[in-house]
């Protein structure tokens, strides 16, 4: 009898705690914990590494909107999804596979992450927050000539021809991985870069490869940081979009962000943020904004 008196309350307590554990770090949990943990990697002007950036300011505003404290958690491109979902995630034939458990370090990812199919299989993305595209970039003194623009499909085809026999600088687990695109099997040599995305242009200029993939935000930063030293050869992908990533188990948090984001756009504050960090993007993707 006494044994039941002990076991039953214990069972009830465990049952009451179970839903909470399942919804860990969803909206209510974030509010309960009083902190929004922002996973990010210093990249272009999304996260400058100096305490600011488009994503940083956006998440700070979102945390303020939620009424919680903002906390930045730095990760890297190889494990940022692991840090969000709490599992080691690997790709198997282009499909993500959850592996061993790891510590969940953040509640969302906002770092200029491109929405690509395999990522969507394991994490949810918000409404697209930023347009992007993968461009092919070479040093200014490269013999390769930029394409003459016509239609996007013809531009991509013309750019793919430039890949022939070249050493292409790429980065795994990012949108700059050639395996994600149709040109993956063209005649070029892939050199996977071990440094950060921000270091790809300097590596290219130091001769680490003949050409490199860059997404539009990074290319725009590169044109500003290395004026006259690099040239954009052409596009290698359709237009893409970036968004804020959430655990599949955080739909409320995602919805809360989507609502917040739409309001922000309506108010014009988001446009001001974009103009602050990526003023050129309006000229390229006027429709998006």
């Amino acid at each position, binding site marked *: 009898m006494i044994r039941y008196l002990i076991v039953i309350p214990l069972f009830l307590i465990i049952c009451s705690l179970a839903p909470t554990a399942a919804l860990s770090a969803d909206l209510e949990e974030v509010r309960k914990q009083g902190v929004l943990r922002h996973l990010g990697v210093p990249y272009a002007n999304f996260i400058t590494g100096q305490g600011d950036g488009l994503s940083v300011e956006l998440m700070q505003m979102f945390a303020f909107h939620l009424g919680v404290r903002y906390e930045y958690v730095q990760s890297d491109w190889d494990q940022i999804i692991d840090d969000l979902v709490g599992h080691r995630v690997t790709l198997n034939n282009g499909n993500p596979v959850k592996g061993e458990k790891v510590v969940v370090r953040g509640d969302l990812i906002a770092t200029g992450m491109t929405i690509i199919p395999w990522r969507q299989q394991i994490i949810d993305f918000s409404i697209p927050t930023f347009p992007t595209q993968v*461009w092919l970039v070479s040093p*200014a003194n490269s013999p390769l*000539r*930029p*394409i*003459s*623009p016509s239609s996007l499909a013809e*531009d991509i085809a013309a750019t793919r021809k430039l890949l022939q026999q070249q050493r292409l600088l790429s980065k795994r687990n990012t949108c700059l991985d050639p395996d994600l695109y149709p040109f993956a099997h063209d005649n070029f040599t892939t050199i996977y870069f071990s440094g950060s995305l921000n270091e790809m242009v300097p590596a290219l200029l130091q001769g680490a490869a003949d050409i490199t993939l860059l997404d539009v935000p990074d*290319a*725009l930063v590169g*044109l*500003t940081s290395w*004026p*006259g030293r690099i*040239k*954009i*050869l*052409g*596009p290698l992908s359709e237009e893409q979009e970036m968004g804020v990533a959430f655990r599949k188990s955080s739909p409320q948090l995602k919805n809360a962000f989507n609502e917040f984001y739409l309001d922000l756009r309506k108010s014009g504050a988001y446009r001001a943020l974009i103009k602050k960090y990526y*003023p*050129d993007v309006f*000229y*390229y993707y006027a429709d998006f904004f």
Partner: protein
Amino acid sequence: MKVSSPSPVQNISHQRSYVLAILSLLILMSILLGMNYYAQKQAQLRTIERIQSDVDAEATRFAMLIDRLQSELHQLAASQEVNAYFRNKALGMSMEYGLRASLNNITYLFDRQLKQFPFGGTSIFEHISIFDCSGELLASMPEPQNQSVQRSKVSCQEILPNQSFSNNGILHLQAPVMSDNKRVATMHAEIPYTRIHNHLATRISSGSHSIILHNNLVADPPLDNTPPEFLNLTTRQLGNKEPLLLSVKDPLLIQIMELWRIDHPLLFKSSINGFSMTLLRIESAGDIYDKTAPITILVVMILFSSVIVIFSFRLIHSASRNAALNHYIHELSDSADALREKNQEMNLIIEGAKIGTWAWDVSTGKLQVNNTWSQMLGYKSDELPPHVTTWEERLHPDEVSHVFTAVNDHLAGKSSIYITDHRLRHASGDWIWVRAVGQVFSRDQYGNPVQVKGIHLEITELKNSLLQTEQAQREADSVIANFLDSLLVVDCNLIIRRINKATCALLNYQEKELLGRHVSFLFSDPQTYVSSCFNIPIGNDSPNESDLRNIEMTLQCANGNLLPVSVNLARLKDQHGKTIGIVAGAKDVSALKNALVKTERQHQFIERIFNIVPGGLLVMDADYSILHHNDTYGLLINDWCQTYQIDKESLHRLIQQKMSELLPNHKSGHFSIHSTTSEFFIEFHAAKERTKHHNNWVIYLHDVTSKLQAESVHRLHSTVLEQTTEAVVVSDKKGRFRYVNKAFTSLSGYSLSEIIGRPVSLLKTGTYQKSFYVDLTKTLKSGNVWSGSMAYRHKNHSLFETDTSISPIRNDSGEIICYVSLWRDVSHERILQRQLLQAQKLEAVGQLAAGIAHELNTPIQYIQNNMSFIQDSFTLIHPLINRLQQLRARPVSISDSTWQAQLAKEIVAADLDFIYKEIPKSIIESMQGIGHVVRIVSAMKELSHPGQIDKLPTDFNRLIDNATIVTRNEWKYVATLTTDLDPDLPPVVCDSGTWGQILLNLIVNSAQAIEATHRADGALGNIHIMTRTQGQTLILTIRDDGIGIADKHLDRIFEPFFTTKEVGKGTGQGLSIVYDLVVNKHQGQITCDSTAGQGCSFTLKVPLA
């Protein structure tokens, strides 16, 4: 007292002063008026100059501002953003893919430029844009509101003067954009003149109005219908700096006058340098250019001044007349008062002096007298008849004639006043003496006297006194003349008034020769002395009687003989006690004087003897009381008291006490006296003077403190000299030993008797060059101290080394009289130092041994290979040689085919052609290898040779070559060693072994410093060795780009055992030994210049000889 009024003469002088003052006032006012006019004109000119200067300054600022804006536009055109766009475009980038971003960067650049507010709250640029060569607008900020400006009329081919133009109040600036030396675009900026003007307006005085002409068009302010006449006017007439007064008929001027409300515009002009612009300033001429104002002020001032002068003149004239009138009135009043006072005074005098007055009417004989006259004769006033006969009847009969004569002479006008003394009969019958004084007061028209007035003053008592005095005088003259001793009388001026016969006889003068002379004439004594003796106070002060008695003086006779006399003086006084002269009586004392003089001379002689004794001489009685002492004793006492701070009484007491203790037993000796601060010594010699009346001591004292102290110091010096461990040598100017101490005899082996008087060269070693001794002698003769190391030869012919210091000794006149040498035996230290040096050198060479062995191994290897080849070759040709030897032993015909075939076969077998070709090469290579080995070994030998004391002329560059060879293995893997050796370097007098060690240390240090940098790329460092000469100095620089030396270590690198190298890499002795060798052994300098991480440079400076 009355204040006297100015006289008429004074009034005239005052009037002159007034006139002068008025004239001065006129001149002053004229000057002031002139100055005022001049100042007015100058003020106008300065105002114009100031405005022109302001306009010029404004134009300069304007030009500077436009120049700056133009410069900023050029900077924009050359900016990285603009350049990047055209480069990207040239690379073929498209707007869709990247080029748009580059263009946007230009836009942002323009935006940033516009947001810079260096000129206040707004950007000075209105608009910045960039057009390509087709005139297409590429970027613009602010963005254009209409599409009409999308194309510019300016293309790249157009050449723009000054790259600026004006339009509608806007200054347009342009700058070419260049890319790859081609003009690819044009930068364009628009700046409203008004904005420039507003910016500069803060520096322009308020109320000024400016116009800017650009290319002869009015650019600012915006005026409608700019008439060309105005422009022609300004360009034609404003060719100089003079301001221009514009015509009011000018239409533009009318517009300007209406705009700025200016009545008489005055135009100033200044060109804006570098641009086709002109700045015009319009000022109101009425404010600064009124020519009539100074003249108007001048006329008003003159009129005002004239009125003031006329008014002043009239005022002064009236004042002068009033002053003269007042003066006259005052004079009359004063005269009346004076007369009244005079009468009162006269009556008072007459009555007070009991003067009888009389008035005689000559024509009637009536005589009016006063009461005093009647009373003087013993009558009442009315008892005597008022007639002149009253006076005539009472005249003394003896005086009637001369009285009447005097009266008649006066009445006849022969004398101005009548004065005579005569007697009148008194009522009592006695005769009284009167003094009569009269004068004619009026005469008739013929000159006859009418009225005579006068006075009679009774002088009976005076007359009686005179008679008595004359009698006394006669009696005194008789006494003086007949006095037996010398007697003379002088007056208060010391003039001889009486002198008796005895004196005249004594001096052999006549009385008349002496009377009237100064009394000093009689004496041979100085006049001052005589005068002082006779200078008795004239007043009632009584002199000391002793001063008037027995005064010793010397009379001088007419024949020159001197007579000592004793003079007594007495004062002569009148009845009032006043001194009127001196009576002097003189007595001949020549005999007595002679005796006294002789006695005095003897006394002085004794005193001189007493005082010239060079010490204190004193006489003490039996109780040791000091009876007498000489001056020297007094001086000694004073000197001792001051020197040893002891009071005089105590010193006397101490001396008396010492004498009382010592004299009973000792007649000579010395004793000491202790003061509070020190002790001093007195030597004494005493003798007893025995007479009938007393037994006195005569004692001689003198100070022997210095003498005793000197003896003590001398004994100490002698002891020090004899017992010091350093050899002390005194030699004379001829170089002969005059003194040596014990240390010298033990050091040199010579005894004192053997060395004194012998030449110093006895100890010469013969190892020094002549120049060494020449330099030493030169140094000493110039009066300087020579110091250095020197070796000498022992009596047993062995050498000993010393640190020697030789000093010249001079006498009081500065002449060198001898030389003092101090020798410190350092033989043992030198041996140890050389051993240490050699050990360190061998250690350094030993450390290099492995490397040197490696260096030797390479040539020896190929020498060995070549030798093996030669050996093999000999084996191959050996059969051929045997064949030839057989031929010599058994000659065969050269045409023997068999022999020829065998010979040919053996030649082929020996491969003779190959051997013939290769052996010489092998030999040459071997010789080269041997030469390399020889060079290394030779360098080793030279560098590791034991150090020499003597420095020899050395090929310093060769030393460096040797050092680089020996250390090659140390640096060749880490550095490239280059040398820049002075080809004209003269032979350096040095110790080559020592220098080899220095070079080894420094080169190895450099190699290790480069090795310590651990260059990741494997690049070699650099060691650079350079020699140069500067005058008589060799400069050696060894520089490396190694790890360098931290600042905190730089001050310690030359300290022994200080090292920053890893354990086992260095002992810390290398640089300290280098320092010792360079600085101490070669009298050189060594400096180190280093920056941590960048390398190190050692600079060594040593004398060439």
